[in-house]
């Protein structure tokens, strides 16, 4: 997926002004998700579960080389084949090569942020391979040629009416079809795709080192079909997805579902160990696991940002975020959006590429309260902001304004003078005259300042 983060501000403005339906749809959906998450957490000792999950992930990440090699050995013992990809290009090459080796003409895919990240569909299509996204939301977006807007609900920004028009145009369904009818129209196309597909491609929510298990969570059953029907299954898995033990997986499957949708567990969980070996197993003949770095080792090496690698891609931080709700995910300009994108993208892509995302937050902390693995997102955003400031990546107007403020604040005479001028002009007038702040203050009236400065009041004795 092309990186277009630099346009975050202009794209946000455009979405809010030109597509007001997006704000309405995303806000409604995320508030509903967040309420379900709260309900899901209330049924367990969520603080204890979240602390435990944070501990397991921290342990795994600080022993990652050990668990990666253990997972590789177990997968190979199970009959699966393991591939390693340093970057997106190599990951695409591996999957495309496997497809060619197996004379694959048609692929079905389960929803996967990792394959979005490496832009896999385009590479497969360039190789002449037909690709079907089989998650209903992803299928809608594939027809529209749009990237996902949300980790969990990729098409939450689309209204029923938009899907009705799309399916009437592309699938010939009734223009006023209800969701059941529309889903049936998609199912007919995708069922045929499942039957015909030579290869199934998924991501992986977790990879258990002890057993070599790729674990996948979903509600539709499309991932169960993707990992079962085609003769070849390829799982594209980020190297941070490791868990040490099968018993750890039990906790993570449930906590992730509760954080995402409030469910005790996804309606379907696939545990993939390897290719079918039992005579009665009608599963794939080959299973390949592609372990992808693509910037993750840079994040792991970062003094602070490594904690973002605990992320389980539940989307809870997006649902809780008042900033994300205004625009949905497309404004963020890359695959990982919302609060987690704002801390992960600078690490994966480099801070320069990910500007201004660390600033796309009010630092309210709702994301951290929702996060099942307690990623301290506001703290990480502040670290990225400091680095951006140190590296001169912030806008020159902002740097000039802060330098001016520092200059005034460190000179008592100048500070007194500025205070007196400010109290005469009024805060609104001053704010509107300043760079950066001016835009924010344009539609706001600030409280009227006291005619006397704080220093004057202090001298006279404050009661």
């Amino acid at each position, binding site marked *: 997926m092309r990186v277009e983060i630099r346009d975050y501000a202009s794209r946000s403005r455009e979405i809010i002004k030109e597509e007001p339906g997006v704000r309405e749809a995303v806000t409604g959906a995320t508030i*509903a998700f967040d309420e379900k998450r709260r309900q899901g957490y209330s049924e*367990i*000792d969520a603080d*204890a579960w979240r602390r435990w999950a944070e*501990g397991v992930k*921290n*342990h795994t990440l*600080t*022993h*990652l*080389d050990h668990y990666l*090699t253990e997972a590789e050995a177990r997968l190979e013992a*199970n*009959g699966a*084949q393991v*591939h*390693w990809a*340093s970057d997106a290009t*190599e990951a695409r090459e591996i999957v495309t090569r496997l497809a060619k080796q197996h004379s694959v003409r048609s692929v079905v895919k389960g929803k996967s942020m990792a394959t979005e990240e490496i832009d896999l569909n385009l590479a497969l299509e360039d190789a002449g391979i037909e690709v079907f996204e089989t998650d*209903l*939301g992803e299928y*809608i977006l594939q027809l529209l040629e749009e990237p996902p807007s949300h980790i969990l609900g990729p098409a*939450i920004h689309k209204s029923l009416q938009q*899907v009705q028009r799309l399916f009437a145009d592309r699938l010939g369904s009734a223009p006023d079809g209800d*969701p*059941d009818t*529309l*889903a049936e129209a998609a199912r007919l196309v995708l069922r045929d795709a*499942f039957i015909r597909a030579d290869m199934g491609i998924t991501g992986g929510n977790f990879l258990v080192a002890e057993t070599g*298990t790729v674990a996948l969570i979903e*509600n*539709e*059953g499309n991932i*169960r*079909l993707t990992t*079962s029907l085609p003769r070849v299954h390829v799982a594209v898995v980020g190297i941070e997805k490791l868990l040490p033990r*099968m*018993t750890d997986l*039990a906790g993570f499957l449930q906590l992730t579902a509760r954080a995402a949708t409030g*469910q*005790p*567990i996804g*309606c*379907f*969980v*696939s*545990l*993939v*160990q390897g290719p079918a070996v*039992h005579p*009665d*197993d*009608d*599963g794939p003949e080959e*299973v390949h696991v592609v*372990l992808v*770095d693509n910037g993750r*080792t840079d994040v*792991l090496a970062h003094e602070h940002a*490594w904690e973002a690698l605990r992320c389980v891609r539940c989307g809870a931080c997006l649902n809780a975020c008042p900033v994300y709700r205004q625009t949905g995910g497309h404004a963020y300009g890359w695959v990982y959006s919302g609060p987690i994108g704002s801390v992960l993208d600078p690490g994966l892509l480099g801070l320069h590429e990910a500007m201004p995302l660390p600033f796309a937050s009010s630092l309210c902390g709702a994301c951290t309260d929702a996060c099942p693995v307690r990623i301290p997102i506001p703290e990480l955003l502040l670290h990225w902001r400091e680095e951006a400031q140190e590296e001169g990546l912030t806008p020159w107007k902002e740097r000039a304004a802060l330098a001016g403020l520092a200059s005034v604040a460190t000179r008592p005479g100048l500070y007194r003078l500025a205070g007196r001028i400010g109290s005469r002009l009024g805060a609104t007038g001053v704010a509107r005259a300043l760079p950066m702040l001016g835009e924010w203050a344009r539609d706001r009236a600030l409280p009227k300042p006291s005619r006397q400065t704080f220093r004057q009041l202090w001298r006279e004795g404050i009661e």
Partner: protein
Amino acid sequence: MRGDSSRERILARVAKATASRQRLPHPGALVTPPADDPVGGFVKRFTSSGGEVAEADPERSPSEWLTGFLGGLDPAVAGVAIGADVPADLRPRLPAVAAAHAGAGISVAWGAVAESGSLVLPSTGTRTAQLLPPVHIVWVPEGRVFARLEDALAELQDGLPAGVGLHSGPSKSADIGRTVVTGVHGPGRCIALVGPGSTASTGVT
């Protein structure tokens, strides 16, 4: 593949990234409260997720009862896809057809889980029968209902098949207009038949 330079490069980068970092310990097992009625807990969770539970008539043979039960569904089931590990006495007396054309799939669970309301289905039981028909009927021996998912996975781990499915309700999606639709890809109805017994399905040791 082993010997791949990317493998060595990634592992070296991981080792370097974590070399100066404190190696944090594993926090141990997640302690959750025990359930005193696993079967009741399973039924409650499974049905709250949209799953259905039916009880076979003990006066009739399971095969005979299931045949009648399938005939009473709407629409009535005329042909079934049966998992390879379903014992003869649990198979309905209906024509066996390809899973893609079957009115129902019949499986036997390796076990079930109260904590998550899940059926544990090994791949040795014919995946297509579990996934393609619009209705999935699953025999569950009540002696195989685990209180916690951790307990089930710990026991399953000793003889893990190539694939395991945890099914905790019907196929569903809310991707269109935030309205929940069932039977999107997998079975739109998932019916657990909890009955006497304590034997795991065959094929898993």
